[in-house]
């Protein structure tokens, strides 16, 4: 988030602009400033708006295109033993007993469930419905033929869960020119356990422009009926006994349900998407929904802008400089929620001599030295030490120091920046982001500072 170093040119630019704008621009005042526009930032802003909290949000939404679109909750047990979790709610109860400092352990299960339901409900209302079982994880296949567990999957992928569960006769289709997605690879890898899985490769002449094909381009094309007809015609000769058809994730960007149901009608069998490597359409869909629908929640959004610096004023409120490459706007907020992410999101900075929090230099729980950040194998099932680094918080998701004291009464943190969790290895990304955002906003709503009038 923060880029605190300006060169001289930018520094002058900033001064000139603030001198010029000072009279015209009053600082934006709000009850809550959400910093970050990833999943945690979006969820926090959504929950704040729902609670009637006047919120401002800043951050880059572009990174969301790297999201898988899957709503993982808890797929592999925390602690590095690699135990696969069938029932995430039961898993979370055990997690709470064994790892009380894990961010999930600070929330009752019913609140986590409510948070997920509210947020997937919001996405469903925006045209991106999610499906899943009540008490257990869904299993779906990946483009390399491995099995992935998730709690809520986009409706476009749901039929694949049933197909896998029943090892039903199923046709996997790839598209010439779409790299990194091979039907033969998926079928060869899974074939031993799923003999009725077949592969086909199709060409899409309407897309006959030679060269690489991109999922986003294909997905936008399929929003047109003619393209769907062409796709169905190309797939049909390969159908054989298949009772399901699996495609790379290309079933539209905005109208996925129309695309999917129309293809199913044309082919006569359920159709499902298989995730593709990022940036994938499943991430682009989320980004576009956030871009369009979040401002409609009554939130003042500064997307494509970041917070360059922030400080606490004497009255306890935070003053933040928001802008593109330099500060353009000042926001004054009763409370701030950091959803700035880890290293990729720039909420944390991994310097050779230690890990720092980027905006306020908050204390970061971290391994003793760089030698214990990462293990010798990338894929070591025990996970990497650095992944447990991050901000330690109290039960209200407020960052605390090493002695457990709250650092700022009105500062909250949510999402992957939190310590004592490894969302990648426990397959918890979206669940952790949404649940902790919910927890932080609930705590804020109950806290007097969060309710004080600007």
């Amino acid at each position: 988030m923060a880029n605190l170093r300006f060169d001289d040119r930018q520094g002058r630019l900033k001064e000139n602009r603030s001198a010029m704008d000072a009279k015209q621009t009053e600082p934006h005042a709000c009850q809550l400033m959400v910093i970050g526009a990833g999943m945690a930032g979006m969820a926090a802003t959504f929950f704040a708006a729902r609670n009637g909290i006047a919120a401002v949000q800043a951050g880059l939404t572009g990174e969301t295109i790297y999201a898988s679109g899957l709503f993982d909750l808890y797929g592999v047990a925390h602690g590095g033993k690699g135990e696969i979790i069938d029932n995430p709610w039961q898993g979370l109860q055990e997690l709470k007993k064994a790892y009380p400092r894990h961010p999930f352990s600070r929330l009752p299960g019913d609140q986590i469930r409510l948070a997920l339901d509210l947020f997937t409900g919001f996405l469903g209302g925006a045209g991106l419905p999610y499906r899943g079982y009540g008490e257990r994880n869904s299993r779906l296949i990946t483009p390399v033929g491995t099995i992935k567990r998730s709690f809520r999957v986009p409706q476009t992928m749901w039929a694949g869960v049933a197909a896998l569960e029943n090892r039903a006769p199923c046709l996997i289709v790839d598209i010439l020119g779409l790299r990194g997605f091979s039907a033969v690879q998926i079928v060869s890898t899974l074939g031993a356990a799923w003999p009725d899985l077949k592969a086909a490769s199709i060409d899409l002449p309407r897309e006959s422009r030679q060269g690489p094909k991109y999922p986003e381009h294909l997905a936008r094309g399929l929003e047109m009926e003619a393209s769907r007809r062409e796709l169905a015609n190309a797939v049909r000769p390969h159908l054989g006994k298949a009772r399901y058809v699996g495609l790379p994730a290309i079933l539209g960007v905005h109208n996925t349900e129309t695309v999917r149901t129309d293809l199913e009608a044309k082919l006569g069998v359920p159709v499902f998407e298989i995730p593709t490597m990022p940036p994938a359409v499943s991430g682009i869909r989320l980004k576009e929904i956030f871009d369009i629908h979040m401002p409609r929640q009554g939130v003042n959004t500064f997307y494509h802008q970041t917070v360059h610096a922030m400080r606490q004023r004497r009255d306890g409120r935070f003053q933040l400089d928001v802008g593109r490459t330099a500060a353009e706007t000042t926001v004054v907020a009763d409370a701030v929620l950091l959803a700035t992410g880890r290293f990729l999101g720039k909420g944390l900075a991994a310097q050779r001599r230690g890990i720092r929090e980027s905006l306020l230099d908050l204390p970061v729980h971290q391994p003793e030295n760089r030698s214990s950040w990462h293990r010798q194998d990338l894929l070591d099932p025990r996970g990497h030490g650095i992944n447990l680094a991050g901000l330690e918080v109290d039960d209200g998701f407020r960052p605390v120091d090493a002695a457990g004291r709250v650092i700022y009464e009105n500062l909250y943190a949510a999402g992957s920046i939190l310590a004592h969790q490894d969302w990648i290895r426990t397959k918890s990304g979206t669940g952790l982001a949404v649940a902790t955002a919910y927890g932080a906003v609930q705590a804020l709503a109950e806290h007097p500072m969060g309710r004080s009038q600007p």
Partner: protein
Amino acid sequence: MGATLNTQVLIIGGGATGTGLARDLALRGVHCILVEKRDINAGASGGNHGLLHSGARYIASDPAAARECRKEGEILKRLAPQCVEQSGGLFVAVPGDDEAYIAEFESRCRKCGISATAVDPKDAREMEPCLSADIIAAYAVEDAAIDPFKLSLDNMAQAMDLGSSQLLHHEVVGFKRQGGRLVEVLLADAIKGGEVRIRADQIINASGAWAGNVAALAGADIDMIYSQGSLMITQMRLGERVINRLRRAADADILVPAGTVSIFGTTSQRIDDPNRCRPTTAEVDAMLADGRAMIPKLEDTRFIRAYAGVRPLVQAGGDSDDRAVSRGYALLDHAADGLDNFITITGGKLTTYRLMAERAADLACRRLGISAPCRTAREPLPVSSQAQYTEPGLTSRMWLKQKDPADLLLCECEMVPMSVFNEIAASLVDGGQRPGLREMGQRSRVGKGPCQGSFCSLRMAAHMYNQGLLKDGEGVRELKDFLNERWRGIQPLLWGVTVAQAELQEALHCGLLGLEVTEMP
């Protein structure tokens, strides 16, 4: 029961010395088979600085080696120019460096016949702006950069043109001994499984750091020391020339250009098993702390990869400093072990590999009664097509020139298209090797760009299935192996923006694909 092959000379080890030997012997009309347990240059020959020494580094510790380096360096510049960048070199000193050593540098070089010209420190800074403003002395020498992969592949290509052959991924697992002769060598085929037997008149052990292990299988004894040296590759080329610290050979004192990047090193760390060689975070941090006195820019330079090699040192006495053990080579005839058809050539350095090969070949030919002289000091090394795609920028230039939109890029960072992949795969298959992801990485630039293999590995695996190069569940194993191998070189360099890239990589390969979890369908 596998095949039994016959040859005049069996060479064990596919590094610079082994491949150099294969060429040397083939040029003398001797048929050889080269066996290598992994791939060409998988050991120290691929894990070094790529520095063709002028010899100036060894003037104090080992003047004989210094003279050999000078002579061999000149030969390689003349006969294998395709492998050499004649960058020239500098030796520079910073405040605090041993002034007596600085004062004697020029005369010591002269005694070894090595050219060293004093350069005003101000001029040196103009020649190499990355140097510290504080340098107190500088000398220009005739160091150069050498591409060890191209060198070994070109050597082996000529040997094979002349009728010799290679068996890669074949590990020596035993010898059958009758009296003073090793009558048969047993090899395990690491790819297909099974065993291969080779009968050879002479057997030359050129397995570098593994020479002691191989000799032990033959019932011979070599007292080896393993000294790990770690190196780091910068994202951009920092210097035009080879830059050496003007002091007695120590850690973190050489920066060598290699095409578009530079290589900084090294360390000297004793390890007890050559298989345990890998660069560590502690070595990297120590090198940066030391090296920035000469090249301050190292402090904020981005590094793309670290790697390590094992110096195979044959122990002479009870020395404690591994750099004091002779850097000259060891040629052992194993007469003391009661063997008359086993030779070991190890130790030494890349610069003198040709001479080592010559000496070992001389001994083998003497024993075979062959009088043909060595030709490698006179005849140019032919350019082969084997190594061409390791050159940075080559495949992207080809691809842009060719303008075939159907020829999709598999590696976008380094612009390696399907056509190049297929060509390399075909040549690997022709050579009886498997075209795996690692092998592709060694013969092209794939996986060496900023994504470090995160994305291209997936595109390549999918392509390999489509081409029938992978089957069943091999792809997942192949990906894991490739990613863990790339990781070896990234892990010690993880700070700053590379940590973010590693996070993205882990999110993809573990978070989405679950490669670290083994869940069956």
